[in-house]
């Protein structure tokens, strides 16, 4: 389960990570894209942090939707509509909630990944955000099905996300700006898959701290 405080904590921890890894994400993007992923994500989450105090008293769905709306109008690159849609869909999945059960968390993750697939018209294996996100969600579900706790499942989720990032080094980009590079995109990790792995890192860190 996750309380509203955990959700707010996740947003803050993730925003910190986007600021901290700004240059790293931009470097990955410079290699295969337009070199702005870290700049865009940190700008978007800086705006989210400015917005957060005005919505933190609301329900979890309103908080997540406000994060999404802020991202779509401040990130600037494709990650704005993609991450923005993910947060908005996750919010819509947990309407009216002050607290999330494990089922709610899984539903929110499923809706978020569905939103990204819909928005980006992408599938797994195209060197995108999805290549860390889908394995992470699958690992979380598999761990829970094995009788593990959510905290344990989130450790597995983060690990699967980073494995997914490694996998993106081996494949050709067929979506987004990197697709113009064709085979030259091989050997480089996908910046979007990387920023998404940091999201699962943030969720995991918050869950370990919260002890649930």
């Amino acid at each position, binding site marked *: 389960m996750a309380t509203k405080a955990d959700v707010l904590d996740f947003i803050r921890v993730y925003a910190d990570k986007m600021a901290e890894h700004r240059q790293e994400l931009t470097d990955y993007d410079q290699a295969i894209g337009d070199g702005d992923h870290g700049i865009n994500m940190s700008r978007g989450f800086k705006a989210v942090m400015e917005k957060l105090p005005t919505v933190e008293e609301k329900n979890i769905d309103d908080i997540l939707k406000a994060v999404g709306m802020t991202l779509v109008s401040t990130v600037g690159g494709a990650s704005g*509509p993609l991450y923005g849609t993910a947060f908005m869909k996750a919010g819509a999945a947990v309407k009216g909630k002050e607290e999330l059960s494990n089922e709610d968390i899984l539903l929110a993750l499923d809706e978020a990944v569905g939103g990204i697939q819909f*928005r980006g018209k992408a599938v797994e294996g195209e060197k995108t955000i999805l290549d860390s996100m889908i394995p992470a969600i699958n690992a979380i579900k598999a761990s829970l099905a094995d009788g593990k706790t959510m905290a344990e499942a989130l450790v597995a989720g983060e690990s699967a996300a980073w494995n997914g990032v490694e996998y993106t080094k081996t494949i050709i980009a067929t979506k987004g700006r990197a697709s113009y590079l064709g085979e030259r995109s091989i050997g480089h990790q996908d910046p979007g898959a990387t920023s998404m792995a940091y999201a699962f890192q943030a969720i995991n860190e918050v869950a370990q701290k919260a002890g649930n």
Partner: protein
Amino acid sequence: MVGIVVVSHSQKVAEGAVELARQMAPEARIAAAGGMEDGSIGTDVSKILAAIEAVEEGDGVVILVDLGSAVMSSEMAMEMLNDSSHVKIIDAPIVEGTIFGSVEASIGSSFEEVVEVLAGAKAYKKF
């Protein structure tokens, strides 16, 4: 009159395309939605939404885009409209499409006619 919205990552590209189109069709309802609020490179859903609302007068709106997130941001702006049945993102060169669309719209063509002309803009040969 059918409205035209120009969505580019660059404010200058969007405004430049509008400037060129205005020269040919001064009375066209056309709006630039380029760059971010602070003028930096990117596309901004709320800026696009405001541009659609600014040119919409009931006859429909066509959106010309450059690449990548311009398409996704425009789709999101469309989803935020109450009725997007007469709003369409056009797959055409952004500058040429803006000019062709503005001229066609300014002579009073319908939404369907403007869309059809713009479908041809992609195949237009310059020489």
